């Protein structure tokens, strides 16, 4: 069991797993984006895709055993810390994703109020 955990902790395996997982998430998001018709589902799928990318970034930028990149008591050297940049970036990306999602949802709600429809095909059918 421990061997299995050790094996799983090996960077290549761990990264591989993360890669597969986040790509799966990405594909699920893509599927939702392409296959679903409800606007909210579409927006959720978008969020999912973004999440997948974020996850991928975070996951691949660290290896097991690294500590959080915070200088505090006792931790005064940069050795053994995870790269701080991805985490900072992902924080930003999450915020941006949030904003887009919120905007999208609010637009969708406005649209639903005006047209009583939340179907993405209805968007497409808007004629000149």
């Amino acid at each position, binding site marked *: 069991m421990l061997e299995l955990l050790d094996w799983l902790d090996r960077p290549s395996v761990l990264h591989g797993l993360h890669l597969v997982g986040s790509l799966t998430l990405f594909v699920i998001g893509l599927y939702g*984006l392409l296959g679903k018709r409800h606007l909210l589902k579409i927006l959720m799928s978008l969020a999912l895709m973004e999440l997948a990318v974020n996850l991928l970034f975070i996951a691949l930028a660290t290896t097991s055993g690294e500590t959080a990149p915070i200088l505090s008591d006792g931790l005064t050297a940069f050795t053994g810390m995870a790269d701080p940049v991805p985490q900072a970036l992902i924080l930003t990306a999450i915020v941006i994703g949030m904003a887009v999602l919120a905007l999208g949802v609010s637009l969708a709600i406005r649209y639903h109020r005006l047209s009583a429809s939340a179907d993405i*095909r209805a*968007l*497409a059918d808007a004629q000149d």
Partner: protein
Amino acid sequence: MTTNRPLLLKLLFLAVSLTPTLTLLTWDGAWVWPLFGEFELLFQLEPLAAFFLLLLALGAPLVALPMARGTPDVPTYALFVLLLLGMQVLLLAGDFIGLFIGWEIMTWSSYLLLIRSTRATLEGAQTYILFNLASAFLLLAGLLVFYSATGDFQIAALTEASTAQRWAVFVLLGLAFLVKVGVLPLHRWIPLGYDQAPDLFSAVLAGLISKMGVYGLLLLPTLFPDALAGLAGRWLNGPTAGYGLAWIGAITAIVATFKAISQQDIKRLLAYSSIAQLGYVLTALGVGSSLAVGGAILQTLVHTLVKLLLFITFAGIILQTGQRRFNDLGHLIDRMPVAFFAVLIGIIGLAGMPPLPGFAAKYLVFVGLIDARWLLLLAAMMLSSTAAFIYCYRLIYGPFLGHANSPEARDATEAPMSYLIPQIVLMGLLVLLGIFPGWAIEIIVDPVLTALNLAPIGAPSWGELATPYGGYDGVILMTVFGSAFVIVTALFWLARGQLRRAGSPYDLSFAGEVPTADMPLHYGAGMGRELRRIPLIGWILAHTTTGIQAGLTRQTLATAGLLGGLYRRDPQTWILLAVLVLASVPTLLLLNGGNS
């Protein structure tokens, strides 16, 4: 002072229309305007351009005068001024960029003028602008090839270009100018455009704008060290490349002449006749000898004068009657005598009959063809110029002779003075040039020939046109004909008996029948129809390029529809396409061996 504003506007317009004259008289030296990089515009007045500027200086005020009639139409005035500006830029340009700028300004301002007519249809307008822009873009392509060969846009001989470059320049520029001149099968914009343009503007189109194509064609040989012979050697007594051009011109002339004969609308007929006339010019330019080019230049001059005269006259007729088809006019000779004489002089010039200068032009071209030993071309030209008699006859018979076929034609009066003055001026010019062909050669043709590095034709006296093949004397011809005319008339009056004018236009020898107004007595519409029974003409008249053009349009629009179909309104499709591209690129790279 507000009451005087229209008058001031008109005066201003007329004054501006005199700018080509002013340019012609005062422009000397070169004026340089920088653009970017090492490019600059060079404006100078070459003798060749001066000839065309002369045409412009003649034509512009003569058309502007009737245009200024009535309530001032400011956009039209402005566009006309722009057009003049464009043509002057074109002619003054010493480099291809300036030429192209002028060409384009001329193109779009003339288009905007054209669609001011209430008759302009979508098809006509589109055909006009697309053909002209195609011509402009061909010109642009040609001059870019020229630039790539010389590294410069100055109009000069291509001395160090490869054969491929020379041919590319020749074909591209040639096509550009041929579209403007309207050779078959690139002519379709001419009948549509001339027909649908405002009536007076048709005069500009036919008389001046089409001449810019001729200007280009005259410029073309100067781009090659040995003129046209430098391209593909010589054939018989002239350049081989020119032989091709000449045949294009001759076939154009023949087909357009027969097309002209079969038209029912005056302006369309004139349009086709323009095509045919410029076909002669093309043939002559193909010969490239001094005689033929001299003929071409003279023909250009005559065609300008004649077409201005005819279009202005018919504009007057259309103004007075509102009718423009042969079948709807008739017997205007009594009511519009000035217009009748204008058209008479016009068709004599058009048909190239002595004593008007059209004959001198044709004479030079014929002699040039004989000199080049291109006799089959001579036959072709002869065919079209004798067939031209038929449409010339229609031009004068339809509106002026026969029977008045519409109420408007029955009560028409002479056109206003502003139409008559240009007519009279142009008639005078034509007759003058006809009596003094030598003068025209000396003053107008020879400077251009010298500028083109050709031997001047020269003339022993003002009245005489002399070539190595003999010549004729316009003054003596006119004197003999005039005296004969006077003597015969006098003898006729001296003889006994009385003349009586028929009491009615229906007093006709009609096999004992009494013709009435409801009989189709006016032979305006059907004239020339029986020509279809001649196999060659029947074949020509049965074929048009309309179908090709319509097919091309249809295909383009179908492609457009197909591609427009890609632009679906469904966001999911857009994303799907993006993902597909994402997926396909690695696949392609993989299939390609991944060697990127």
